[in-house]
């Protein structure tokens, strides 16, 4: 899976993105965020506030229940502030 991080999530984790292989028991975006949080350190810090992390699966907004697989591009970022 291709993971992308933007804005404060990118800054806290210290990476713009990474390639990962999903564990077998991670099937949706909520499970992915929980699994990343269990890595601890900067991941736990970046993803600590549940209301503060948005998820996009293949460049479309998703939610905790949106299915994810190793073929997907998943982005994690804070609420948007353009315009």
């Amino acid at each position, binding site marked *: 899976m291709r993971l*992308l991080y*933007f*804005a*404060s999530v*990118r*800054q806290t984790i210290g990476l713009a993105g990474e390639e990962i292989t999903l564990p077998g028991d991670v099937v949706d975006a909520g499970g992915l965020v929980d699994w990343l949080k269990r890595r601890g350190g900067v991941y736990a810090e970046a993803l600590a506030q549940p209301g503060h992390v948005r998820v*996009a699966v293949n*460049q*479309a*907004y998703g939610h905790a229940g949106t299915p994810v697989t190793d073929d997907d591009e998943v*982005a994690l*970022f*804070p*609420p*948007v*502030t*353009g*315009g």
Partner: protein
Amino acid sequence: MIRVQAEDFDIAAEMEAIASNSTSLGAIASFVGVVRDMAGGGRPSSMTLEHYPGMTEGMLREIDEEACRRWPLEASLIIHRYGRLEPGDRIVLVVTASAHRHAALEACAFLIDWLKTKAPFWKFEETPDGSRWVEARALDDDAAARWEKE
């Protein structure tokens, strides 16, 4: 039409292009977003806009298509910049054209309200007092929500 670019844009030229492209329009509405002076007192400050290439264009296109479904528009244009900007710099331009003013004005307000809460852009401010990611505002969510259909 949508464009995501680092470069500045020429408001008059963009509006003229839309005006000259149609013979049946009677109204052109526009919105220009400009970088505020965050530091105050003439002290240096800057704003850097980060975006999600690919998804940004996709979301802007979706929002633009939604406006065209809701209002009888002759033309619409969204230009949004990214990269490092300074106070007074233009960030975003929205132009809508229609036969009548209500459609043009409402569609223009809709586009900027939805863009602010849906297009994946993030603002990072730097001032002499420090730097910070701009927080999303509940007021912007309220503004976008008034266009939600039940």
